[in-house]
């Protein structure tokens, strides 16, 4: 499950350097979304690390989710998660995706996404800085072990 499920050796080495992400907006205010896009633009430049936005969850390694859960988005998020091929990782970005954030007692939203799909990494912030997003994704991905013995030391 999660990072430890990545195969070791050459595939892991290659996967660490080419992270294809798919982004889902689950009732977010778009603040986190524009910071994710800003992380891909020249000032912060996540693309030099191999991160690329893909058009379909079937091509993705990592799923980025922003926003609180809204009943309309629950099924859609589950479907997207099911469409991703193994091995796959999920990152919850922003305070809303963690546990509702400032919307935690609203009647139509306000619980974290980990009640719907399993999450491997949480990046807090409202919204988190693009530097924080890149740091988080790197921390997740460098946890992928090169050798099977290192899998036990993985922190996610």
């Amino acid at each position: 499950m999660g990072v430890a499920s990545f195969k070791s050796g050459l595939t892991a080495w290659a996967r660490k350097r080419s992270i294809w992400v798919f982004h889902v907006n689950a009732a977010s205010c778009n603040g986190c979304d524009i910071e994710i896009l800003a992380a891909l633009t020249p000032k912060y430049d996540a693309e030099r690390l191999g991160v690329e936005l893909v058009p379909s969850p079937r091509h993705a390694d990592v799923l980025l989710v922003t926003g609180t859960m809204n009943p309309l988005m629950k099924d859609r998020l589950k479907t997207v998660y099911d469409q991703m091929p193994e091995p796959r990782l999920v990152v919850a970005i922003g305070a809303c995706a963690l546990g509702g954030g400032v919307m935690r007692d609203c009647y139509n939203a306000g619980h974290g996404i980990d009640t719907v799909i399993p999450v491997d990494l949480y990046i807090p912030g409202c919204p988190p800085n693009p530097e924080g997003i890149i740091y988080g994704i790197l921390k997740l991905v460098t946890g992928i072990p090169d050798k099977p013995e290192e899998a036990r030391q993985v922190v996610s």
Partner: protein
Amino acid sequence: MSDNAEGAHYTESSAGLMEYSAESAMPFGPVHPSLKEPEYFKLILEGEKIVQVMPRIGYVHRGIERAAQDRTWVKNVYLVERICGICSFSHSLGYTQGVENLTQFEIPKRARYLRTVVHELERIHSHLLWLGLIGHWAGFDTLFMWIWKDREHSLDLLEAITGNRVNKSYSTIGGVRKDLPDGMAEKLKTEAGFIEKRLNYYDGLMKSEETFAIRTKGMGRINQEVTRRLSTVGPLLRCTGIPRDIRVEDPYAAYDEVVPEVMTSNDGDIASLVSIRLNEARDSCRMIKEAVDKMPSGDFKVNIPRAIPAGESMFHVEAPRGELFYYVKSAGGSTPERVKIRTSTMANILTGVEMLKGHTLADVPVVLTGMDPCFGCMDRIAVLDVSKGKEWSIGGEALRRYGIDYYSKRGGNK
């Protein structure tokens, strides 16, 4: 049953409970989706052209108006600015000014000037974001990357003044939260000059790039009849030649002394929206420099007691996307009785629908971005092809790549 003659009629089909008639000017009600996932927009195609669009909003409905009744007046600023991350300062400005109208206090002049400066900085950041996105959807990724790199200059300024890039919480009930740091005034002028120079460069670039012109000229045409009928707001209204801007019609903050120039165009298409937003961003640079020069000294905040007197007030601001309307009702307590918010995107959805009609699927990303929707709106689009009887979903990124391929086959994007 359906017939493909002109003015086709189409009822009760595999798409669920739906009625549709090509002559009607009014949109039809929500449809029970036959696809398991809910969709933002359902496009109905006949042949290659889109004949009807059914938007489904409610994806970002979180219940904020109700939550605002449970929080104190000041706490609501933090709630309200997270309605939209791109125009968050406009939301807090509309709310705080609406609340201040219920009291007898007058906001100090310096606070009003500071609000103007941050408001215009936000307009620059939002328009640059939109210009980059139009480039992205039209396949002009270089433009997207370069513009977003320059956009970082405005975000750095915002972070230096307010402490955060996106959710700034700068406006508070009674003024602004803190004063300008030392040396900021000079920095604002130099950076505004830099952004203005870059905008001049992009203006020349976008006009000279043919592939960009093919994707934007003549697309999404609307006219004054549509905007009058549907009460459009913002640049979408001004691109049909109607010179309406809330900052000029109903000045708030310091706009009675630092007067904006209202940009209009007569073409009503995406290319005119591009030039209007670019010109507005340039004008914002000019206004920031003027506001810094004219800024009076004094208090940046006046202390307002926690219980706001009873009453109701209406306030609207010109957010980067258009008119943002706030209605605030107080019963005299420490929490509001009612906060009603009407975002500018909500007012423009029907106009966006009108813009899409008659276009092909390849034009959808560019035309839809013209109405400046929220990000999520492009996420999931359902397409129903009436002539083939097929229905399928497509995501935003996939649609973008389809559009680029479509135009490159026709000799457009290279």
